[in-house]
């Protein structure tokens, strides 16, 4: 029998990851390098937002305290958000946004594929929908990585910079802390550490095509899963929660 509290916290991790990255991508709307890319980034943001909503709604049901998707999405304290640090990092330039998306989407593609075999029926259903969406996110971001890597000297330089910025946040995605281990052992989640070799292979494949390479990382940053964030999350929440905090308890 899976512990309800643990399942709830596991769903929050997944939900927060999708929501915060969706929030970041939403910042691009109206400001992308081309009109076509504006629509593409919004599509990814909408996919992630849809996933977040399913995950929060289910988390609320599991918790059984009557909290809905919005109460979970908007009304928690900063250190109750348990997203990985990579998704809260600022958009930076387009190379940064694409690199973050690429690292994250390759990871999520592997994770959702694993969750297709979750012992939890609702997670399986969410994964079945998400896996198709994320397949495309991988394709879109990977093709851009290749183009930016090989395009011009400037685009290559920006990619090198972006890889350097985001590489240190990739380790956290594969961490098996007590909750991740408990969920994997219960058959609800998957062994994240076991996904790493495949993630590295896929990422390196694309980077090779792009004429780029993964930078050496001395220390992988971590903390998001236990609510210890970078300075950026607070600013995200200031916007995200603005309406709910300013006008508490109202219906919108």
């Amino acid at each position: 029998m899976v512990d309800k509290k643990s399942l709830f916290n596991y769903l929050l991790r997944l939900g927060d990851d999708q929501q915060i990255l969706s929030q970041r991508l939403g910042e691009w709307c109206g400001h992308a390098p081309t009109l076509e890319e504006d629509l593409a980034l919004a599509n990814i943001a909408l996919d992630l937002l849809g996933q977040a909503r399913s995950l929060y709604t289910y988390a609320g049901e599991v918790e059984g305290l009557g909290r809905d998707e919005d109460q979970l999405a908007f009304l928690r304290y900063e250190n109750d958000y348990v997203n990985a640090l990579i998704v809260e990092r600022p958009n930076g330039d387009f190379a940064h946004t694409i690199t973050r998306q690429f690292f994250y989407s390759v990871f999520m593609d592997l994770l959702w594929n694993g969750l297709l075999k979750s012992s939890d029926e609702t997670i399986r259903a969410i994964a079945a929908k998400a896996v198709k969406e994320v397949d495309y996110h991988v394709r879109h971001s990977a093709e851009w990585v290749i183009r930016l890597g090989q395009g011009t000297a400037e685009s290559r330089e920006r990619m090198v910079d972006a890889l350097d910025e985001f590489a240190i946040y990739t380790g956290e995605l594969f961490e098996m802390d007590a909750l991740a281990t408990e969920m994997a052992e219960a058959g609800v989640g998957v062994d994240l550490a076991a996904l790493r070799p495949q993630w590295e292979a896929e990422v390196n494949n694309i980077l090779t095509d792009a004429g780029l390479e993964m930078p050496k990382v001395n220390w992988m940053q971590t903390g998001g899963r236990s609510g210890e964030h970078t300075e950026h999350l607070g600013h995200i929440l200031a916007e995200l929660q603005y309406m709910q905090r300013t006008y508490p308890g109202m219906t919108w």
Partner: protein
Amino acid sequence: MSEKPTPLWEVFIRARNGLSHKHAGSIHAADAEMALQAARDVYTRRGEGQSLWVVRSDQIVASDPVDKDMMFEPTASKIYRHPTFYEIPEEVGNM
């Protein structure tokens, strides 16, 4: 001074299998893969498609409207190509 133009592509969508691809509009993209992705992201946001074609606009060969009479008028008189040209008695039934 305008920057270097990104090529224009025409987008064709098959709404469902059994139908032919139909022109939906155009997008700009530097290469075929990006054109395909842009077509997907722009023109199939409401379940419009099962299959996509993208074609470089400058690769399409079009008839000239000036030639319209020469190209398309002569066919108007060939009414014997249509079934209604032929008279079959009603008793014979549907044919």
